[in-house]
């Protein structure tokens, strides 16, 4: 059985249907990429997977490891192993990066009946991971994402992912806002997290990211449905031709 199974997923926002029958299955250890025109529903899919309020599933199912995700609140899904690196990471004035990470880790531990994490060991572990991702000590001391540059926000998302070690990661346009060097650093960070147990769904507009994080499968999402799936060659094809075929096909 696949780690993530999405079947015939329909979802709407404010009464407007956005996802119109998505089928997607991702095996443990696989990386899938989703590409697609602006407004096609990629971020919507990521929010629906993460359990954001206001995104109403009207039909279909999502299972992670056989568990029904739709039955769970956002925090329960996170504890079950879902992680969403957001397209637009949110600013949290007054909440420092370190506090945020410690709260997140301890929430998880509490949910599974473990002791709170040892503060000193945790600090060391976070600092080490932060260093490899180019997240400075200063950024950890500051309020989460407040005053961060676009690229800093994205690195910070991947740091959270590295610290929380989720089972299933969704990366929503993590490459946007990253400079060329940062793209490399962040991609290496993501690749370091690839294991036979962990799956990823990488949303991007650019082929370049997929040179760094090589996906097993690429899907094209347009008009709320997966229009085509294929291997790496599909990204190159899109780079050449754009989305014209899919947009017209469904229109």
């Amino acid at each position: 059985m696949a780690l993530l199974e999405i079947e015939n997923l329909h979802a709407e926002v404010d009464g407007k249907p956005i996802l119109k029958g998505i089928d997607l299955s991702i095996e443990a250890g696989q990386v899938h990429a989703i590409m697609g025109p602006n407004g096609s529903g990629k971020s919507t899919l990521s929010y629906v997977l993460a359990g954001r309020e206001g995104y109403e599933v009207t039909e279909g199912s999502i299972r992670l490891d056989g568990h029904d995700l739709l039955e769970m609140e956002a925090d329960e899904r996170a504890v079950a192993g879902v992680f969403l690196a957001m397209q637009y990471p949110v600013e949290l004035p007054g909440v420092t990066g370190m506090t945020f990470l410690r709260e997140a880790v301890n929430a998880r531990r509490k949910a599974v009946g473990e002791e709170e994490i040892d503060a000193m060991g945790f600090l060391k572990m976070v600092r080490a991971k932060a260093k490899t991702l180019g997240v400075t000590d200063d950024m950890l001391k500051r309020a989460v994402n407040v005053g961060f540059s676009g690229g800093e926000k994205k690195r910070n998302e991947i740091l959270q992912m590295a610290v929380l070690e989720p089972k299933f990661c969704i990366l929503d346009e993590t490459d946007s806002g990253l400079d060329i060097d940062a793209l490399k650093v962040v991609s290496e960070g993501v690749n370091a997290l690839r294991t036979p147990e962990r799956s990823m769904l990488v949303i991007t507009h650019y082929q370049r990211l997929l040179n760094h994080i090589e996906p097993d499968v690429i899907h094209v999402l347009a008009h709320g449905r997966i229009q085509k799936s294929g291997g790496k060659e599909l990204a190159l094809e899109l780079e050449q031709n754009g989305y014209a075929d899919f947009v017209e096909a469904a229109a």
Partner: protein
Amino acid sequence: MADKATLPLLTAVPKTEGGSPWLTKLRRTAVENAERTGLPGVRTEAWKFTNLNALKALEPVAATGTAEIARLPAFADLQAVELHLSNGTLTHADAMPEGVDLVGLAEPDDAPDWVSETLGTVAETAPHPFTAINTGAFTGGIALRIRKGAAVETPILLLVDTRSLEGAGTVAAHPRILVVVEDGAMADLVEVHTGGGAYVNNAVTELVIGKDARLGHYKLQAESGEAFHIAMTAARCAANSTYDNFALSTGATLSRNEIRATLAGRHIEYRINGGYLACGDQHMDTATFIDHAEPDCASHELYKGVLADRAHGVFQGKILVRPDAQKTDGYQMNRALLLSREAEINSKPELEIYADDVKCSHGATVGELEDDQLFYLMARGIPEERARAILVSAYVDEAVDHIQREPIRDAFRAAAAEWMQKNIAGAPAEGGL
């Protein structure tokens, strides 16, 4: 609007005859003022958002007897010298640090000159009926003097507790606090108000801050849930002084915290920040008045309020810039977070400026918790209640962080966190970066 029926608050007026002339005069004037004005009514502009009918319906007797006072957990680790005022009576005093004089105000007739010459000179009784009642009726309190040039490192922690003892019914106490910081002296005073059951705590804190002096003055109002807390803080600051004021209100069914300061010299830095955290049916009124009387002074004011359930918050902040007060730099902001649809805030910022070369701004905001912030925390595995508490704590800490002394800041952060724990549940743990 005179409302004489409510003056039983004055029942316990000590004798105004036969004592020292200065005190007799002070008390007599105060009582006259109280009787002339009566308690504020709905048409009294300064009190228009705060209905005192519940207070007026009380027939309190003078608080008598004393009880042990314990520190609140948030202040447990604060290194400080302690003073206890139980029902207005000074029941405990640690040895004061060098450079600090302490005088009890139970029998102020015998008070030294520095007390008789300053008591009642800053907290005016004519326009402020509750201050008048306190001045007429106080039976105890403390006067502190920080001597010229003394730099007092250890904070002075004043625990003020009011409660009905031995079946006395509803009681009223009028604790009086006088602080004289002489030129070039530095000190920190922390006031913590607590109590039990139904009572009225009508406190007046009067401060005279000398040239080049620094006073940190931090107050926690954590009265019992049935209490009425009516407080006046009145300060007069001299040139080049720094007055760092912070007030956090969490208790009482009805509270009014009024803070008035006159900046009576040049180059004064006045910091007046605070927070109010209310839930249930609590009513919390904060009124501040900053009198910029001289040029080149700066005042910074940030208040953060959190109102849950059916709580009602009031913030009235006035900045007066007199004609001479050129180059005044005044900033005032009141921000309130409403956690329920039934919670309410009345905000009335007011600038009155008679000088032309000044930089003054003021504002007020009302908001709710942001959905996207809540989702972000939950998407990292943090349960909703805890996520809310984290966000609300962070919101309040923005004001608390203005407290200049770190150990005191930590204590107030902890006090706010305790409130979250109790009222929003699952508040964040202390510590970390």
